[in-house]
């Protein structure tokens, strides 16, 4: 929370007053990462209630708020004036690799974390043009670069108790004094020698720093770890595979579906011992409900070998967990894909909101999945209330809401030594890690989606010791419909899109920002940064940035009382690797198959590393 009282607070109050409605939010939670306390504005959809303080003057958590709405109460920039946006500051981070996260704004300072070597740059917003205050250089172990699967990305920092806290690719978490840039503590989460890396943005709630690992490609065992915010000491750790004790499953564990009930399923749903390398990494976003102390997150795909060698459901890979943040104990779990054959990580964001569902107030969890299904769940019980397709999907026809199981098409299940064509979506999913945004004013969830399918082909020699490792023989290519990316404005109450914007050339792989000005911001992989009308999808403004966008835009009020919007331009990541000249675009199987989907990218944009700030 900013200690400064300045004109920007006044402007917010004016904006709120103009909206003429009352705050229906609960009292502020016992969170150390509270957003600035700006209440939801008027014009909120009837029956809809946000559950945690929303982002306003500042942007202090990775998603703006702990419920992961990525919605800001700021309304200075609106449909009438967004066309006047222009660059007010730029800064190169000096690392032209994939920039996947977003900055934070705390007080009058902006904080930017670069891709590996994971430098933290503090920017003084009181000075014109984005001037650097200091740079903290953690100097992580360079071996992490040889271990990370999909570019050397970092998805951003968190702020709590005067510290900027973030993860290093080499398996560490650091806390840095937000004023001085001095390192306060450094904790070891993963062992890079075993293939463990960290790319996710931590969440800090109730004095606990929540960090999960990456590295499913190397057979690591997924886990979520809670650290003490003051010391970095471990409070608890919850594995994604193994015995109930390791998974932190106890008497309070009440999964909704029978398929997720039973003792030690994290062991018995695997061939003997395979859970030890079972994947289920936790590299995405974490949400928090301050009323119940529950956190929500999803796990990645099951680890090692193709599905033929790991018969069983492979729990708890590709599973949504609800846990008590105080103890780490699981409240419920829902495995979205049993026995995965497609690499459908479900680490995507879980957006928490209370709203009327079929006439009754419910506590909802919204999960736009990699599988192509839009899950609406009761976050108290783990019941799936709806699972509707938001992109072309053929691996399953639907979800059986009575059992919680997908109704699969067996002909689209990949098998080694067999060619399986036309699987939709591809392994990169109908949506990737790039997070959606929810506007309480429209009741729409703005989903950055992909329309990409794949062929799976068994190839011979991709795994001989002592020879270079090829990886999977997966070829990805655009699905039918004449588009590759799509911004889907999903009408949660009605279970269908209200409108959408089709992007012809590339998947949408950057996050979305929604504001009380009824403007939605998003970026494209070829570098267009766009503002559209939150209610109609009509284009209001766009500008071409120096590199493709796979980052999450944020908004804040500067020390001058004016609203700004910031985003990184720096294409890369798994889907964007074709811009790096060491990948052959002639080979559709390169970069684990993604080149086929994005081979054209280098004709449109180049690698980059620029922070852009826009103002009126």
């Amino acid at each position, binding site marked *: 929370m900013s200690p400064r009282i300045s004109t920007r607070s006044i402007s917010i109050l004016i904006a709120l007053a103009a909206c003429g409605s009352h705050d229906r939010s609960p009292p502020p939670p016992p969170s150390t990462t509270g957003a600035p306390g700006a209440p939801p504005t008027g014009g909120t959809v009837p029956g809809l209630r946000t559950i945690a303080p929303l982002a306003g003057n500042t942007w202090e958590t990775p998603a703006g708020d702990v419920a992961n709405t990525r919605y800001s109460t700021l309304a200075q920039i609106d449909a009438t004036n967004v066309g006047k946006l222009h660059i007010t500051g730029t800064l190169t981070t000096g690392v032209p690799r994939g920039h996947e996260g977003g900055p934070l704004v705390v007080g009058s300072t902006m904080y930017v974390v670069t891709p590996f070597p994971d430098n933290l740059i503090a920017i003084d917003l009181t000075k014109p043009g984005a001037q650097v205050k200091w740079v903290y250089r953690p100097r992580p172990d360079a*071996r992490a*670069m*040889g*271990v990370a*699967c999909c570019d050397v990305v970092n998805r951003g920092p968190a702020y709590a108790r005067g510290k900027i806290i973030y993860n290093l690719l080499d398996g560490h978490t650091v806390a840095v004094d937000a004023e001085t840039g001095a390192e306060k503590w450094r904790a070891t989460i993963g*062992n*890079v*020698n*075993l*293939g463990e890396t960290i790319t996710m943005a931590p969440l800090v709630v109730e004095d606990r720093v929540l960090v999960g690992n990456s590295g*499913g*490609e*190397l*057979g690591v065992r997924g886990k979520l770890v809670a650290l003490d915010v003051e010391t970095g000491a471990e409070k608890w750790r919850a594995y994604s595979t193994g015995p109930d004790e390791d998974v932190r499953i106890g008497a309070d564990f009440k999964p909704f579906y029978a398929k997720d009930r039973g003792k030690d399923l994290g062991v018995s749903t695997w*061939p*003997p*011992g*395979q859970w*030890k*390398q079972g*994947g289920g990494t936790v590299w995405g976003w974490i949400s928090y409900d301050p009323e119940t102390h529950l956190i929500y997150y999803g796990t*990645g*795909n*099951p*680890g*090692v*070998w*193709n599905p*033929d*060698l*790991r*018969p069983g459901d492979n729990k708890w890979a590709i599973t949504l967990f609800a846990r008590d943040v105080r103890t780490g104990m699981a409240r419920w779990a829902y495995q979205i894909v049993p026995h995965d054959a497609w*690499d459908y990580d479900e680490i995507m964001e879980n957006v928490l909101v209370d709203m009327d569902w079929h006439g009754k107030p419910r506590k909802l969890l919204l999960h736009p999945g990699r599988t192509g299904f839009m899950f609406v769940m009761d976050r108290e019980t783990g019941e799936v209330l709806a699972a509707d397709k938001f992109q072309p999907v053929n691996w399953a026809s639907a979800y059986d809401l009575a059992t919680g199981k997908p109704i699969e098409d067996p002909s689209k299940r*990949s098998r*080694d*030594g067999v060619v399986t064509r036309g699987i939709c979506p591809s392994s990169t999913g109908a949506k990737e890690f790039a997070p959606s945004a929810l506007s309480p004013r429209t009741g729409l969830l703005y989903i950055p989606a992909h329309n990409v399918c794949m062929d*799976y082909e*068994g190839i*011979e*020699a*991709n*795994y*001989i*010791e*002592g*020879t*270079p*490792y*090829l*990886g*999977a*023989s*997966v070829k990805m290519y655009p699905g039918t419909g004449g588009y590759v990316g799509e911004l889907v404005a999903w009408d949660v109450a009605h279970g269908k899109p209200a409108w959408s914007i089709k992007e012809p050339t590339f998947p949408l792989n950057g996050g979305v920002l929604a504001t009380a000005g009824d403007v939605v911001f998003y970026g494209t992989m070829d570098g267009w940064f766009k503002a559209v009308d939150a209610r109609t999808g009509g284009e209001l403004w766009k500008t071409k940035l120096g590199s493709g966008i796979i980052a999450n835009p944020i908004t804040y009020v500067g020390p001058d009382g004016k609203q700004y919007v910031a985003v990184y331009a720096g294409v890369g990541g798994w889907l964007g690797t074709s811009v790096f000249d*060491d*990948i*052959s675009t002639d*080979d559709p*199987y*390169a970069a*684990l198959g993604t080149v086929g989907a994005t081979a054209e990218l280098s004709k449109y944009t180049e690698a980059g590393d620029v922070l852009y700030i826009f103002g009126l």
Partner: protein
Amino acid sequence: MSCTSSACSVLVVALVAALVACGQPAGGAPVAPVAPLRVCADPNNLPFSNRARAGFENALAELVAHALGREVAYTWFPQRRGFIKNTLKAGKCDLVIGVPAGYELAATTRPYYRSTYVFVSRADRRLDIHALDDPRLRELRIGVHALGDDYANVPPAQALSRHGLERQLVGYSFFGDYAQPDPPRALIDAVARGEVDLAIAWGPLAGWAAAHAAVPLVVTPIDHPADEPLPFSFAIAMGVRKDEPVLRAAVDAWIARRGPAIADVLDRFAIPRVPGGRR
């Protein structure tokens, strides 16, 4: 060499002076310095290569370089996904000593050996298993290298799953703990310790690790079933960038000429070989 630090300094100075002096050979035209042969290799992956240059690929690199009148300079990188991207294709080095013949990401020479997947067991167990349909496999714990989450399996392990034996398999990390020496050999050590009854491993690793094991181990090539779509044996070549035909031709010619010398090196490391075609 052992010397005090001050004595070493003197020695270093003398060596530098000698090298500088060598730049101007007496009585002849100045000789252009020959660029080193830049080899991409894993610094911790015996029997193939390591930073101490104790692997068979290190030995072969020295032989090739010597024949070309050059010194070897290494670019070290772990043999994982991205190896070629970060080394050969990044222009940081020019030659990879071991790639599958016909490998897509490089221009490959003629193959210089062919090996196969093998069974490894303790000699005192007298298992003598050489076929995947051996009924005793249903009772055994079979160690195998487990890969990451991208569908790939070691071919004989995949074949075992088709025989319904996937529950007999015990996975060992293909990449291992990179802080330990030669991480892939943990699979063979597990056989020696009796942690598993049998291992399925790639021949070069198995042959070398078995030769250095604490107890006698038996290495047996796995019979390739007639109905098995995946091959078990592979020809191994050297690789260069696709736009370097001159280097490729030079290395290719050396391989054609120096078969016996190559065989000597492979024998020294107990690398099992099998006959077969070029792929």
